[in-house]
């Protein structure tokens, strides 16, 4: 069964994906590669969320949560990488 919120999320994700892919191809933003990876994981999780309602519920549900975990790790790695690099270079400057 499809849920309305999941479909809306999927549509918004697709639009965002197009923009992100475009940004990736242009190499506009340096140092955010792990953020892109994290976003891709979240996007995959969104797709799996929709799919789990149609078939192989258990498999796609597992994949969905795996993608969340992977996305979290990617974002954590990306943020840590930038923070550590800046701390090393210029010292700490907290918000």
């Amino acid at each position: 069964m499809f849920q309305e919120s999941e479909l809306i999320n999927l549509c918004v994700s697709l639009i965002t994906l197009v923009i992100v892919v475009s940004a990736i191809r242009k190499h506009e933003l340096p140092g955010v590669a792990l953020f892109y990876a994290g976003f891709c994981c979240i996007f995959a999780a969104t797709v799996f969320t929709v799919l789990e309602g149609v078939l192989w519920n258990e498999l796609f549900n597992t994949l969905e949560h795996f993608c969340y975990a992977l996305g979290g790790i990617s974002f954590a790695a990306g943020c840590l990488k930038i923070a550590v690099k800046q701390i090393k270079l210029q010292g700490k400057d907290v918000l």
Partner: protein
Amino acid sequence: MNLIAFFDLLATVGFGIAVLAVFFIRRDYFGLQSRILLLLSLSVYLLVSISNVLEHADITGYFDRFEDYLEILFMPFFLFFLFSVSAKFNLDKRLAAEDALRSALDKAEAEHSKLEAILAAIGDGISIQDRNFKVLYQNKVHKEMAGDHAGKLCYEAYEQSSEPCPGCPVEASFLDSKVHKAERRATRHKGTLYVEITASPIINQKGEVYAGIEVVRDVTNRKRMTDEILKAQKLESIGLLAGGIAHDFNNLLAAVLGNISLAKTYAASDNKVTAKLEAAEKASLRGRELTRQLLTFSKGGSPVKKVMDINRLVRESSIFSLPTSRVKCVFVLSEELWPVEVDPSQLSQVVNNLVINADQAMPEGGLIHVSTENVLLSPGNSTLPASGKYVCVSFTDQGQGIAAGHLPRIFDPFYSTKAGGTGLGLATAFSIIKNHGGHITVESSPGSGAKFQVFLPAAPKGIDELPVQDEEVYTGEGRILFMDDDEAVRILAQDMLQHLGYNIVLASNGMEAVNIYKAAMEENNPFDAVILDLEVPGGMGGSEAGKKILTINPAAKILVSSGYSNDSVMANSGKYGFSGIIPKPYKIQELGSKLHEHLGNPLSQKSF
């Protein structure tokens, strides 16, 4: 714990660490707005993950109801985060580019300033023109020379021409890519300039000439100096020529004047003949004065000074200078004037120059006030000579006067404000007065005439001699050795000296005279006096011969004679051991008088 629960826990830890790490990212890396958007994005999934973990623990939370909608929020937040980061990075990039540009501009500005300082320090004008002769650059010196004309066509700006100047060195450089030089006369707001232009092409990387640089050097002073040197050389040549001519002319005049004076003595009883001979003699005397002036001009020699009252000389020279002019002289001459030691012919030339100058200042006619007076100068007046007794001769005209700008230079050689003027008259006057230890001043203002004052030091001794009475002829007795290279002069001297009663022996050069004198001394038949010509072309002259004769007989009475009356030997004859001088040409009366003066012959008598 099942696998899904583990993944949820892992996701919770991951997003949690990510949220914490965001606080350690420097503000200026993403910017505040981006960090907040990233924080919101990550917080969405941190909450979702926490909710999932709690669900596994059978704890349902507040967020469960909104979980699906929370997930939708992630995408816009993340999208705005990307936009914001992109804007920040673009801004940073632009700022960095601007910084780089500003830095490059600063560097270029510094280089430009350095280059400008170097170009200004060169001292020559530098201008750059493109292929269309448009002025692209001028340094400070060039702007001072030609005015600021950046952006204009050079030939229009500098020469007021509608096309490139003929022989333009910059144009030549455009054509053959070589360095070209040219010298130009340019009229600028400061006056006429003479400039030397060196033009070089400026070539781009393709080897094409795209502009030309011209270095302009002001050579006005150099050119003026060269012109003055040329003038001086020319004048020196003319002087030498004039001196030579005057010397030869004096020898001719010596024969003419001597023979006339001799003829006068022969024809003493015939009034008609005497009158004609006197007229011829006067003309010859005028000729003698002219040659003396010519010699003064040509050699500027040492003045042959004698102490005299200059009133008569000033009056006669002034009148002599204005024979046919509409200008008249008015004389106010002091009767008690102190005597001064001057060369009459040189002072006469000064008077001539000043009177002629005044005459030329009054083309419509007028009066020149000539005055003489005694002045006692006290110390402290820097414009006048040293303190002491002076005779002041003033010449005041009623002309247009002299502009203040010209006054400081009017005594400079070659400086003249008159068309065709040589610039020598006042310079010669200045030089002569200086040589007499005197001073010359000028006062004038436009429209009120000019006043020249000549200060001559008063002589400490009395007047040297009474004016020679032309008609007195002193005869005498004795042996005279006469040396002159000119046969006509020798023959004349023989006739005159014999007529005066002397025995004469002739010599044509110094060596011959010395030998004759030596032989006479050995024969114990010495000469009473020796008359030597100073200049003997190709032979021993009077100066050397006189020395040798004085070696033979230190008491010898030697008179030196020359057509160069201003020669330093003539001016200082005593220093060279001579008893006196007889300037050529001379009359029989002058010759007789000189011999009478130096021999002191008791048998001499006056003959009328």
